[in-house]
């Protein structure tokens, strides 16, 4: 039996860590459990009793990587319930803000998490010795995402300007215009990123999967859309809880999501790219192709190429929207709360992020529910591992660990912000 601790913990480190336990006997999997701890569950309780107007300041604390996603799912949900008409230009500015987060998150994943795997390094730190220019380029692209997020969100991390009804303050045309040359340069650089990863050997694991994402008739989905799946399901976001159930599993304090009438599914960049292939912008299409993205595909290892394509899309969309940018005037409108249920889904970098708030007539939150993409993908990750591990049983424990981690990392689960994140137990019983 081997035990290897290669984890850097998440927010509630005391509660538990990401862990994978595999019990094998005679080449068969007796048991496989993936445990991932989920911070958002704490926040659901924390939100009850708060006023709706506080929510955009609280929920971004859930995640340092995707604060915008948490703000946007909440803000849109309240605006729908309260029938708020935001000032013209607000949706465009929110899309830029969200694009900034995609750029930042995807470039982190590609350069600090996925690339070291493919180049055979234990971490990005080791990789820096030989891949310094590529790493610097990746961090430069990430920095562009940060800077754009700061300009629109009013603060680099945990943006403060988004609010229900619009923004508390908006950037000037001049401030936004300053990003044009950087975005133009970044569009060249993202193609270079695609060319950098293209020759790297990746495992192939083409397992059929039901891919799920928002779809929208006019745009590649970020802030809005209906839910669609590669199995032909389609429903509006307000039906999410009727269609998707969350199950308690004894081995994890994270819930497992699945369709009520079906099984596990996948949300995230790969699902979005598959379901919205025709809405990929030109450079996104080219970057994806050059990085090896061959749609349609449900191979989780194609996710990195999907992230590169989506980074290009986020750069192109930011550029397009900034060129036509007019600061919303006024930045926000007054909001009158009413009792009811606010729901919304946006596309976080890691996939669909569902929020639901039951609200009293004075705007107090009675109950909150947040279903992050990682919890939606968890069941599928386990199923992937059950299918994948038997194909690599002849490898050493170390190699098996690395490959299993790579499978999970393709999903970019929140916990995977670690260069290594799993505590792996492999119990081979009498075999060795």
């Amino acid at each position, binding site marked *: 039996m081997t035990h290897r601790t290669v984890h850097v*913990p998440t927010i509630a480190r005391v509660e538990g860590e*990401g862990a994978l336990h595999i019990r094998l006997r005679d080449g068969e999997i007796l048991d496989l459990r993936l445990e991932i701890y989920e*911070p958002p569950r704490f926040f659901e309780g*924390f939100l009850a009793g708060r006023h709706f107007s506080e929510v955009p300041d609280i929920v971004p*604390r859930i995640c340092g990587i995707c604060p915008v996603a948490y703000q946007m799912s909440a803000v849109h949900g309240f605006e729908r319930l309260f029938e708020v008409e935001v000032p013209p230009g607000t949706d465009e500015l929110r899309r830029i803000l969200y694009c900034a987060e995609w750029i930042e998150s995807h470039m982190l994943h590609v350069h600090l998490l996925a690339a070291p795997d493919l180049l055979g390094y234990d971490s990005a730190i080791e990789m*820096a010795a030989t891949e310094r220019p590529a790493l610097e380029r990746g961090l430069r692209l990430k920095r562009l995402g940060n800077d754009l997020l700061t300009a629109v969100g009013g603060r680099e991390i945990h943006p403060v300007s988004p609010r229900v009804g619009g923004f508390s303050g908006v950037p000037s045309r001049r401030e936004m215009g300053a990003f044009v040359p950087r975005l133009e340069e970044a569009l060249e650089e993202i193609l270079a990123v695609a060319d950098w990863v293209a020759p790297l050997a990746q495992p192939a694991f083409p397992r059929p999967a039901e891919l799920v994402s928002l779809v929208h008739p006019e745009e590649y989905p970020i802030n809005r859309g209906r839910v669609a799946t590669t199995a032909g399901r389609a429903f509006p976001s307000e039906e999410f809880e009727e269609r998707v159930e969350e199950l308690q599993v004894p081995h994890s304090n994270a819930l497992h999501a699945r369709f009520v009438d079906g099984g596990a599914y996948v949300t995230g960049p790969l699902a979005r790219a598959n379901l919205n292939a025709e809405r990929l912008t030109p450079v996104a299409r080219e970057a994806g192709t050059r990085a090896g993205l061959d749609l349609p595909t449900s191979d989780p290892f194609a996710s990195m190429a999907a992230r590169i394509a989506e980074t290009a899309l986020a750069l192109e969309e930011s550029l397009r929207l900034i060129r036509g940018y007019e600061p919303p005037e006024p930045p926000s409108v007054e909001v009158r709360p009413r009792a009811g249920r606010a729901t919304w889904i946006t596309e976080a970098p890691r996939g669909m992020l569902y929020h639901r708030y039951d609200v009293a007539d004075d705007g107090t939150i009675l109950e909150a529910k947040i279903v992050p993409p990682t919890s939606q993908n968890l069941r599928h990750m386990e199923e992937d591992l059950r299918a994948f591990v038997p194909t690599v049983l002849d490898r050493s424990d170390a190699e098996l660990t690395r490959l299993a981690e790579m499978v999970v990392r393709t999903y970019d689960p929140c916990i995977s912000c670690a260069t290594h994140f799993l505590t792996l137990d492999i119990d081979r019983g009498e075999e060795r």
Partner: protein
Amino acid sequence: MTVVRVVGCGTPSAADDAAGLIAARMAGEELAGVPGVEVVEAGGPFHVLDLLEGAHAVVLVDAVRAPGGGRPPGTVVRVEAGPEGLPADVGRSVSSHGFGVGEAVGLAAALRPGHRIVFLGVEAENVAAGWPVSAPVRRALPGLAHRVAEEARRLVEGAPPGEDGEEA
């Protein structure tokens, strides 16, 4: 040009994980008016990576957990990053994402060798979301903040730095 940047790390509203943010804020008050010093709060380790750029020296302050325990909560640890980043026995800094401050410092050290980074950590007792700062860490905060300010002042004046070690 910022000569010395003080970076507070951590998560607000998550018990002792907020210690770095609070200490930085307190140090900022002590450093008010000192030219060349900037005090900022990091939103996460990836943000720390950015904040390690653009200053001659950085003082990082964060909550830590000794590997395997064994350090009393409230213990203040001081270490200066070398070419390999921070030594493993400092412990993992308790960031809200797996890529910790240690990794950020390691990467910065690999990409920009010679960059001066002083790390001050306080051993955490509890880091659960929604809890207040624990008593031992709360007691350690004024001393920690003062040490942060002292380090920044020494760095900006070019005075000899503090010594590595831990202090309960």
